[in-house]
């Protein structure tokens, strides 16, 4: 009898909590809304420490020469600092899982680019038109230095800001679009980018708050999943951009 009563009261408390959460989430401001079902990579896997991740990203650890070329070129350029070695995707040191993934997605480049006859970067062997930033279809992202970010900014490459809306509005890299990975609607925004048909091999820069922030890596993984093969992560993020005296734009518009 006591157990029955406990279960009934517990169910009432839990049910009320869910109803309250549903109502509150429906009524809250867009930047505080959350999708009920999220999609996050490696949600149950402890990330390896940054240092060991960098160690494992050494070219010797790469299984294929093509992947090696693609992943190491951006960081072997003259503007690279010693601390910005190319890192593999969030799964760590190029696991089978992370290598297999692109094989299933390399046949679906962004639609408009496909219509224009853009060569599939996964099969590209000629010198890259992206210069120092060749596509890396086998890796979700590659980390780049502040100097390389500035170069891409000057070239007009697309920038994406993974931070929360409030942070974006307080200040962002001019031209950067806001895709806060922790707020509701991120999948719709990603879908919109897919429909815009960006060149899948063109360099794209994503950033967040630097330091331990991994939101940019999460966004990079989502962009890689829709077929963008040249996502570059500005590891030191917006604080570093500001510190270097680069231009900053405020407000909700890019």
């Amino acid at each position, binding site marked *: 009898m006591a157990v029955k*009563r*406990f279960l009934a*009261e*517990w169910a009432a*408390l*839990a049910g*009320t*909590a*869910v109803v*309250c*959460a*549903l109502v*509150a*989430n429906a009524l*809250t401001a867009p*930047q*505080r*809304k*959350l*999708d*009920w*079902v*999220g*999609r*996050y*990579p*490696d*949600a*149950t*896997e*402890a*990330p390896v*420490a940054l240092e060991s991740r960098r160690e494992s990203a050494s070219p010797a650890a790469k299984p294929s020469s093509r992947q090696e070329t693609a992943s190491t070129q951006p960081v072997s350029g003259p503007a690279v600092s010693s601390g910005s070695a190319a890192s593999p995707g969030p799964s760590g040191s190029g696991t089978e899982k992370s290598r297999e993934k692109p094989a299933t997605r390399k046949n679906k480049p962004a639609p408009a680019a496909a219509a224009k006859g853009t060569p599939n970067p996964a099969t590209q062997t000629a010198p890259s038109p992206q210069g120092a930033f060749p596509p890396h279809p086998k890796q979700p992202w590659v980390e780049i230095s502040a100097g390389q970010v500035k170069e891409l900014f000057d070239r007009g490459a697309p920038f994406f800001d993974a931070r*929360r809306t409030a942070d974006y509005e307080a200040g962002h890299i001019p031209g950067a679009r806001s895709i*806060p990975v*922790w*707020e*509701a609607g991120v999948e719709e925004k990603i879908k919109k980018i897919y429909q815009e048909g960006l060149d899948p091999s063109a360099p794209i820069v994503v950033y967040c708050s630097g*330091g*331990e922030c991994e939101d940019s890596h999460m966004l990079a993984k989502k962009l890689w999943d829709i077929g963008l093969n040249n996502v570059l992560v500005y590891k030191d993020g917006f604080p570093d951009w500001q510190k270097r005296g680069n231009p900053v734009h405020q407000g909700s518009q890019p």
Partner: protein
Amino acid sequence: VTRGPLLSWLTHPWLTIRLQIGLGVIFVAAALPKILDPPAFAHMVYNYRLVPSPLVNAMALAMPWFELLLGAALVLGLWRRTAAISLVGLLSIFIVAIGINLARAHPVNCGCFDVHAAGKSPAELLAEMRWVLLRDSGMLAAAALVLAGLSQRKTARALDAAAPTPR
């Protein structure tokens, strides 16, 4: 039923009722920042790297309300037994979650009373996690005492009811 003086004192209503209200207030206070910013709390939940991807957001949305209701029930003295058992369960889960991450040296922001990362270094976070483990263990002990006090009073009432009525 014979009990030692220490146990009698620890399960005395004077103490357990105060613990019950104190725990209730703590849980209400802990729930509010999470309710006000679910995306930030979802980030905290994700950082523990223990909750499967599809459940991260659902947990971040519903759990703070559950905490709030448990806290309110304890403060108001409603469904105390159920609330105290649930509290013991929740605190045990928190302790296990922090313990696993401490064991694998994965620094996480607790997300207990504040859902915004304070920019602490990994070493600072690990030190803070040890303190959180201690604090949650203390709260677990307090919740267990509340539960023991409630059970004892229930038993006493049952014995009183079963005793023969004097003529």
